[in-house]
């Protein structure tokens, strides 16, 4: 509105890219937050979960698809996971849900579709890979005899119930703003890094990493771990690297990021014991890495 940066084109472009990412992602943030509000107030998990079949494969499959009815961001998923565990559901089912829900839902599908309009294969591979990874890890965990061994002491001590004060309207506003601030602030940080790497870091440096079929995947997985952007808008962040980084590495980012990152691990620390966290991180990393290499080899 006031200050013109025409004299500093690099800086001007930095702000343009920063604003662009935030502006493009904004509608999807709002939609995601709206869904969170509706789900928190109106969806009763008990009824939903009564219809889960006994069969190991089917039940995990259904849990991985429950994200369609549940909040889309990790911040919203972890309380749901804790509630599931509190209601005596298996750790393996909770893990499958945790890994799949951020990706396998209409909003993430939509934002990925919009961002990668030039190559919809990326959308399909993202969804299929997420389905396979979340289900296989869950099924693997389900073979452990006593799954409650994975839960921390603190989890049993904590009262697993959320007190909501006030009327439904008050709660709605509270959840709406709290989630918005949460998601938007993470997006702002991510946008900052994306814009910096696009404007101020010498291109040749990034290009050499981005074009290498192996290094690019490693770099993107590291970035996905560090940058904790919500799954419903991380496609736009990844898009800014789509020109330089290999397709496989972009997909690794899109699959690894929503499953494992600093923020998620911090939130899970009070629920799962370190050994389970190691298993999850290790398997997700390995499978995302293989995904990235495979895509780079074939595409």
């Amino acid at each position, binding site marked *: 509105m006031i200050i013109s940066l025409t004299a500093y084109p690099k800086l001007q472009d930095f702000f*343009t*890219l920063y604003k662009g990412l935030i502006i493009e992602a904004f509608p999807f943030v*709002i939609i995601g937050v709206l869904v969170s509000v509706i789900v928190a107030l109106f969806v009763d998990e008990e009824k939903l979960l009564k219809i889960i079949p006994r069969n190991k494969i089917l039940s995990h499959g259904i849990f991985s698809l429950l994200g369609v009815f549940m909040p889309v961001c990790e911040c919203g998923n972890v309380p749901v996971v804790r509630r599931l565990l509190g209601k005596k559901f298996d750790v393996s089912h909770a893990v499958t849900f945790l890994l799949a829900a951020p990706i396998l839902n209409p909003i993430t599908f939509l934002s990925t579709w919009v*961002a990668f309009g030039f190559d919809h294969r990326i959308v399909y591979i993202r969804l299929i890979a997420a389905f396979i990874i979340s289900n296989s890890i869950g099924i693997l965990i389900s073979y452990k005899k006593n799954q409650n061994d994975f839960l921390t002491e603190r989890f049993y001590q904590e009262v697993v119930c959320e007190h909501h004060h006030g009327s439904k309207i008050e709660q709605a506003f509270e959840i709406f703003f709290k989630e918005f601030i949460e998601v938007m602030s993470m997006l702002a940080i991510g946008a900052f890094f994306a814009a910096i790497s696009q404007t101020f870091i010498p291109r040749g440096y990034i290009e050499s990493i981005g074009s290498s079929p192996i290094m690019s995947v490693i770099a993107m997985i590291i970035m996905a771990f560090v940058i904790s952007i919500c799954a419903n808008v991380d496609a736009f962040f990844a898009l800014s690297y789509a020109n330089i980084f290999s397709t496989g590495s972009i997909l690794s980012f899109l699959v690894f990021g929503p499953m494992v990152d600093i923020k998620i691990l911090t939130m899970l620390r009070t629920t799962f014991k370190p050994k389970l966290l190691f298993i999850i991180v290790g398997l997700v990393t390995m499978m995302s890495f293989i995904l990235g290499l495979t895509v780079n080899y074939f595409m």
Partner: protein
Amino acid sequence: MKNIYYGVLTGAIAFYLIVLYSTEKLSYYIHPRYNLMTLIIAAFTVLVVVASFIYEARHSPKMLGSAAIIVLAGAFLPRPFFIAIFIFALFIGSFALIKKKAISFEDSKKSLFLIVTLAVIYLFIPKPLSSSTANQRATDFNTLNRADSASGVLLTGFNVNTKAYSLGDWVASINSNPDIESYVGKEVAVSGFVLNANAEKEDTFIVARFVLTCCAVDARPVGLYVESDSKQIENDDWVEVTGRFKIIEIDGKKTLIIAPDELKKIETPRNPYLY
């Protein structure tokens, strides 16, 4: 109190998108087909924020009164002044809330990021991407007219009248028919921003635009060489070039270049990108 503070942050961000839409600069950041959707969602958000204010303040007319005063101040104070005070007040507000234990330190850090975001989006004049990014993203300027932009335009009139071709049309055409000899002598009338005036080769510049799929973050530059020794043309000026194609050698390669009959500066267009 916390809800009001968060509401202000949220509403301010959403309001900015409405401002961008009404000043027709939303297209600097995203594909125009998303403009309306963005406006609707932004307007909806502002409504939610206003509704939450009314709900929170329903028992205290004093709060509604002060809110009305703020809105009036915003309408009558000089804009930069108001924005600066607004940002400053948000900043102070977060400290006040921490002191009152209304929000945690963690939450206030998040609010801080958003206040900085607000400052950035409101304080700097919106502009489309510049030649700096074009240089950053173009690997080889000889392929600037060979980018894979499927403009989907039905290119008729190639043998009759090419004056109506836009820069995007020419790029699509060269993509599908790279035999540059067939372009010599064709009439050209395109507009774009100036890139690398006199840098690559003496007395040439590139008339360029960015192609984007969804938003500014994926913009890639395309362009055509123009022959000109004009000293008044600078990088990032927007120009309209009318002339005909001819072929010269640049870096040992035969390249199409426009020999202009007319070259004039224009205003930054409402839709500066190609899709």
